[in-house]
């Protein structure tokens, strides 16, 4: 993956997830951050930090991004969510507007 096509998402604990830009754009919040004409620091470095989102949740979110792209292209599978994660995942999804 080229550098220009990727975005880095950083969790509360400091873990960094490098994913495709296209995948990250599934989230409206991230999309706005990266494409707005204003000068978000994130646009410049291609990095977004989420101090409230923990690593496990952020990982699940990244999985969701890829699953969503797959679903839209026709391959409709099921996205399983572990019960322990549901509550936090819901709130993170709300925040990320995804």
């Amino acid at each position: 993956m080229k550098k220009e096509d990727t975005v880095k998402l950083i969790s509360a604990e400091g873990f960094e997830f490098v994913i495709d830009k296209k995948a990250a754009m599934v989230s409206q919040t991230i999309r706005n951050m990266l494409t707005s004409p204003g000068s978000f620091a994130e646009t410049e470095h291609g990095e977004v930090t989420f101090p409230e989102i923990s690593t496990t949740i952020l990982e699940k979110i990244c999985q969701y991004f890829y699953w969503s792209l797959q679903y839209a292209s026709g391959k409709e599978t099921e996205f399983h969510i572990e019960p322990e994660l549901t509550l936090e995942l819901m709130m993170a999804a709300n925040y990320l507007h995804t």
Partner: protein
Amino acid sequence: MKRVNESVEGGSENLGLKKVKFSNGNDESCAALDRNEAEERVLVEDGGIDSAQVDKIGDLSEILVPESIDGLSVGCVKESNKWDLDLNVDLSLGNEEEEKGLGFDLNFPVCTTKDVGISENKSVIIDILSDDSDEEVEIIGYSGGYNEKGKQIESGLPHNSAETLSLGLGTYRIDDVFGESSVVNGGERRYTREEKGKASVVDSWLSLKAKSPVDLDLQFHSSDELIRINEPNEDVDDGTWQLAEWAPRSESAERLFRQEERALRFRESLNRQALRETAKRFARVKNSDQNKVNEPLSFLRQAPLSRSEVQELGNTQGPFSEALKMVRERTSKRAAKQLIDWKPCLENQNRSATVPLVPSLLDLSIRALARNAERMVSLEMVPDNLRERLTNVLCDASKMNVHVMSLLVKGCPTEIRIKNCTWLTENQFQETIANCVTRDLQVLQLDLCGRLMLDFLLKNALAQSSNRFSSLVILSLRGACRLSDTGIMHLLESTPAVRSINLGQCTLVTCDAIIFLANSLGPNLRELYIDECLKINAMLTLPAFKKFKNLEVLSVAGIRTVTDQFICEVVSVCGHSMKELDLANCLELTDYSLGAIGSNCADLCSLNISNLHKLTDLGMEYLANGCKSIQKLKLCRNEFSDEAMAAFIESSGECLTELLLNNMAKIEANTAFSLAKRSRKLLSLDISWCRRISNEALGLIVDSCSSLKLLKVFGCRQITNVFVNGHSNPVVRIMGLNLTPIMDHLNLLATEGVLLRHSPIP
């Protein structure tokens, strides 16, 4: 499991028997089925299933071809000939069922019993009886599909999957019980109650108990070989079908074929007639027939319109009349249809009607949470909007229970919103609401809590501490059918700050409650929903309404006593602040009300005038001239003409975001053109049952309104793939076409986090 015979025969049999056949194949026939249903799928084509085909013809000449039934090569039959034969010439007992089932053997003018017989008037009449009556009518609609209990019924005629006749009867799929009714049930042709009972019958509205049975008086001037079935004893309960006389088998075999031809032709003519008859049965009662004499409206002297001012359409000065002139000019130059210049885009021919809607992570996690609701221990950090969504999902899945509710009321909640409290018992109410800290509670929504004797419960709860609901702003007790005036009065005594009250469908509420409301809250009340509170006599509440000076949202839908006078007086008091009005089903309203609304409610954002058949184009004019910023407009079964609607949109349709044009029979190209031109902000459009809007017109609208997210086209069979594949709007979701999912899009336009709809919380 079903015998092949059975399937075919069964069909016929059933058909013969008070069956309603909906033949259709073309629009006119389907026009008869003017129901506001979710899905209508009409399909009758050539070579269809015998029953469908026969249905198509509208007569009941089901013919069984027992011998030639090979599985269902029915499909190959080009004409119904094959099926029209009643080779069941062996009119012995053994075949009686079949015959009977037929009811009408084309080749034998069959006069069955009352259920399936021939009437004198020689019109093919299709009876639909409800299952309440002894005689049951089976509606031949789909075969396959679901019976009313939602169980899938096997299709008696497998071919039907391709050609099913949908009656669009809501979610019911009328099962064609071909296979169900056992054709060969002993030697008798008795439609036992049991058999009838198996039929999936629909609502009682369908109990159009036709007195005259199907007429099959296809009198082919019988030669002796024709079987004539007289109509002997109209044996209602019995349903036995008797044959008067019939020719021996050997002779009729050839004649059958010959007579078939005649029959076919004859059938065609009967078809039309039959359909006309059927159509009448489905007609709604038009309330205009019951018009009383218009009493002189004395209040009109003070009203904005006096009789002398009632003008003809377009004569007043104003944007509407100019728009109307323009529309008329437009159509004088060329036909309306030619206005629409839209070609389908050819690239997308392979696009399916439904692009997969990717479920959002939020939806997925809420659903997962709902599945594991029992394991939740705390909803502490969860914001209110998510709590609401979660409870909605739980309520929809009927999984809402006291455990979740206790989580919701824990701590010091600001909102408790439960849209379905049918499960809530009085003890549970005591445990939860009565014991919760309601100091900061701003929103309380306990809809459908009909089980609770709220009068007592509230009295007890409130007795515990007097300022319990001191911050309550929004209160909704919709559907609390045991809540009476006294309960409301008690409640209101301790909710001084309430601004929005929803008492919809609380059937015990009378005008006393409204008067009390006015006295205690008066100018503070912003939103009042009293729809379908049938005990409220609107005129008696008028003095109360004079005190609601700042009302922003009013819903009096369904209250028949709402008259023009009521509306005029109410809007003269609070018209300046009125933003949303719901007047659906207040059947007495006429253009005067619209005039009053137009003159007083300049800021009106949302108006619902569904089913008000007395409104005419003049009303539309008043509305257009007065309310320039309407965003949500709901029309259903109104009598506005195409030109008036177009003129309205041209003059005041710019802000429209949601437009409902359900069942507006006169809407066609002009309106479509104006919509495409003016309403660029449109988000949701519903043109269900507007059959005159063509593919091109719809394509023009959809391509021009680029923000359109939701399009509903239920009942619009004229919309085909030409439109679906030809439009170039990437965002729009189309609902209502054949077999598309209809629940996915329910939250598409939902707004969240809204408290008072039009003003801030004090």
